C-alpha cells in the first residue's frame, strides 16, 4: 500500500519533460508514422509475463516491418513504471513501450507519463479500447490483452455439478473439502478478484447498484475468518497454479489467460478447466503505452497497433485463451465457456476493489 502511494505520489509530482517530437508524430498520417518507425528500426517492449512466447510472436512483426523488437525479462509492471519515472529526466528512455494492467490508470495520471493521445491516430481506432478495469487511459494507451479471472479446477477431482455458483455453495464446498481451495491476496489479481466478489455478494451489492460509500466490511471479515481453516492463502497467481498442478488444491482462483498459456506450453496438466461462477469474477485487460521520452516512439506506436489489431487479437485468443481486445477479432478459443462470460464483473464498480481488498488484508489475512 505504501509502495503504491509513493509510486502514485512520485508519478504525480515528477517533473514531466515531455519530448516535443511526440506532438509532431501524433499529427502525422499513419503511413508516415510507419515510415518513421522503419527508420527508427528498433523498439524495446517491456511486458511482465509470457516473455518467451511474446518473443516468438513478435518475430512476425519484425519480418513484416523490419523493426527489431527487444523484450527484456521483467518481474512486474510496477518495476518498469519506476524505471520510467526515474528516467524522466533523460532525453530518451530505453523503455519504448510498456505493458500495464488496465487499472493502473487509477493510480497514475496517464497524460503525465505517456505520449498521446495516440489511440485516435491508429487505423480502425473505433475497434480498439482505452477504458479497462475502471481506468480511463484517455487515448494514451491501448488495450492489447483481455483477461478474465475465474475459478480453475481439476475435473478429475471436482465434477461440473459440484462447481460452486453462489457464496453459500462455495462455503459448503470448502467445508467439505478443507485445504483444497487456494487463492492469493498479493502478487496477482486472481485472489483479489475472488475476495472482491465474495465481499460484494455478502454485502448484497449487485452490479446495477450504486455505492456512494463503502459499507461496513465486518460481515465480510467474519465470513473469511469463519472459513479460514478451509481455504489456503497462496503466495501469488503462479503459486496457486503450481500447487494445483502438484495436487495440493482441487480449485483455485486463477487468470484464464495465465493458466491457458501454461497449458499450451505443456507446463501444467491440460485437463484443467476454468469457469466463472454466478457470484461473479472480475475481467479486464492490459494496455500498452509509450513513455513521453521514448527513444523510438514511432516504432512503439506501430507495435502497439500491431498488438491490438484484429488479427493478432484472434491469435492471442487461439494461443492463450484471452478475451480479444479488438471488436473485429475472433473469440472462439477461450478456456472459459461463452455462457460464463455473462458473469463477468469489473474491478472498479460498483464496489471499488481498492476499498475492499486492502481492508481485507489488514483485518483478516494479516491480523
Amino acid at each position, binding site marked *: 500500500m*505504501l*509502495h503504491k502511494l*509513493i509510486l502514485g505520489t*512520485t508519478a504525480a509530482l515528477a517533473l514531466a519533460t515531455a519530448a516535443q517530437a511526440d506532438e509532431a508524430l501524433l499529427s502525422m498520417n499513419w503511413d508516415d508514422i510507419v515510415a518513421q518507425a522503419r527508420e527508427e528500426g528498433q523498439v*524495446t517492449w*517491456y511486458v*511482465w*509475463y*509470457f*516473455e*518467451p512466447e511474446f518473443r516468438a510472436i513478435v518475430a512476425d512483426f519484425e519480418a513484416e516491418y523490419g523493426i527489431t523488437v*527487444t523484450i*527484456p*525479462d*521483467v*518481474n*512486474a509492471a510496477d*518495476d*518498469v513504471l*519506476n*524505471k520510467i*519515472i*526515474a*528516467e*524522466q*529526466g*533523460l532525453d530518451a528512455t*530505453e523503455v519504448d513501450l510498456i505493458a500495464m494492467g488496465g487499472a493502473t490508470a487509477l493510480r497514475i495520471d496517464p497524460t503525465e507519463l505517456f505520449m498521446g493521445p495516440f489511440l485516435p491516430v491508429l487505423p480502425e481506432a473505433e475497434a480498439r479500447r482505452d477504458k479497462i478495469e475502471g481506468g480511463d487511459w484517455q487515448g494514451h494507451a491501448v488495450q492489447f490483452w483481455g483477461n478474465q479471472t475465474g475459478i480453475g479446477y*481439476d475435473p478429475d477431482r471436482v465434477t461440473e455439478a459440484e462447481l460452486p455458483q453462489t457464496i453459500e455453495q462455495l462455503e459448503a464446498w470448502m467445508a467439505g473439502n478443507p485445504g483444497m481451495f487456494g487463492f492469493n491476496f498479493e*502478487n*496477482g489479481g486472481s485472489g483479489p478478484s475472488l475476495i472482491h466478489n465474495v465481499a460484494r455478494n455478502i454485502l448484497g451489492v449487485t452490479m446495477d447498484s450504486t455505492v456512494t460509500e463503502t459499507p461496513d466490511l465486518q460481515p465480510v471479515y467474519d465470513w473469511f475468518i469463519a472459513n479460514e481453516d478451509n481455504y489456503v492463502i497462496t503466495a*501469488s*497467481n*503462479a*503459486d496457486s497454479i*503450481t500447487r494445483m*498442478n*502438484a*495436487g*495440493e488444491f482441487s480449485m483455485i482462483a486463477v487468470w484464464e489467460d*495465465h493458466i491457458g498459456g*501454461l497449458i499450451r*506450453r*505443456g*507446463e*501444467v*496438466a*491440460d485437463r484443467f478447466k476454468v469457469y466463472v461462477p454466478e457470484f461473479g469474477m472480475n475481467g479486464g485487460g492490459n494496455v500498452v503505452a509509450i513513455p513521453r521520452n521514448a527513444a523510438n516512439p514511432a516504432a512503439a506506436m506501430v507495435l502497439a497497433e500491431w498488438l491490438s489489431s484484429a488479427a493478432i487479437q484472434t491469435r492471442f485468443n487461439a494461443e492463450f485463451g484471452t478475451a480479444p481486445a479488438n471488436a473485429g477479432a475472433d473469440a472462439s478459443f477461450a478456456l472459459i465457456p461463452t455462457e460464463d462470460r455473462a458473469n463477468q464483473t469489473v474491478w472498479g464498480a460498483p464496489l471499488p476493489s481498492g476499498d475492499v481488498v486492502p481492508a481485507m488484508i489488514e483485518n483478516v489475512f494479516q491480523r
Partner: protein
Amino acid sequence: MMLARLNTLLAGLLAAVLVLWLLVPFAMALLWSLVDPGTPWSYPDVLPPALSFQRWVLMWETTTLSTAMLNSYTLAPVAAITAILLAAPTAYAFGRIDFPGKGIAQVVTLTPLVLPGFVTAVFFASILVSFGVYSRYGAILLGHVVLFIPYAVRILTVSFAQVNQEVINAARDLGASPLGVFRAAFWPVLKPGVLASFLIVFILSIEEFALAFIVGSPSFTTIPTILFSYLGYDFIRPNAAVVALILVVPNVMLMLFLERLLQSANPANLSGKG
C-alpha cells in the same frame, strides 16, 4: 560410554536434519529441472513422466543468464573492495577515536539502510541522470557502494576497536614503519573483518535487484533481474529450478572459499598473548 552414545545419537540426528533441510530440497530442485518441456509433471504422477536436459539447454540458450552472471560476478567484487576502502577511514575513526557526536555519526552512516529498496533506487537513478552519469556499470557500482558501505563500516569498526594498542606500541618501539605497524598490529586483527565485509557486500551486491533493474535494464542485466523474472508472474517451477541451480553453485563455492579464509583468525592477536 553413555556420553559417546549420546554424541553419536546427536550427530545422527543432526545429519538427519541436514539431509531433510538441505539435501531433499536440492534433490527436488534437480528433479524439477530435469522435467521434459511439454510433458508436465502433474498430480497424481509421483515421478516426472519424462526427464531430459532439454530445459537446461533451453534456459542457457534463450535467456541472458551467462551475460547476467558475468555482469554480477564482475560488479560484486569491485563493489565490495570499493566499499571496504571507502569505509576503512570511517571505521578507524569510529573504532579508535573518541570525538563529539560520534554516536550520531554512527547512526547517520546507517541511513542508506532505512529506506525501501525501490524508493532508494528510483531517486538514486534520477540523481545519477541529473549528474550525467550514464554508464550503467558505473552507476550501479556507485549505487551499490553507497547502499552497502554501512555494513562495511559497522564490521570494520569492531575490527579496528579490537586492535591491541600494546601491539601497536611494541611495533613502533621496535622501529617498524607505518606500513610495518599496519602489517604487524592491524592486519592480523582486521583480516577477518575485511573478509567478512567483503563477503557481505559481495552477497548484497549479487542479490540487489531494484537499482540494477532501474538503471541497468535492458542492456545491463544482473542475476537478480533474471531470477526475479523467473520467480515472478511467469513462475514455472522447472525453469525456476534450472535458474536457481545454475546460480547456487558459484555462490556456494565462494562461501566455502571465504569460510576457509575466515578461519585463519588468530585469537592471540586479540588477547595479546601467545
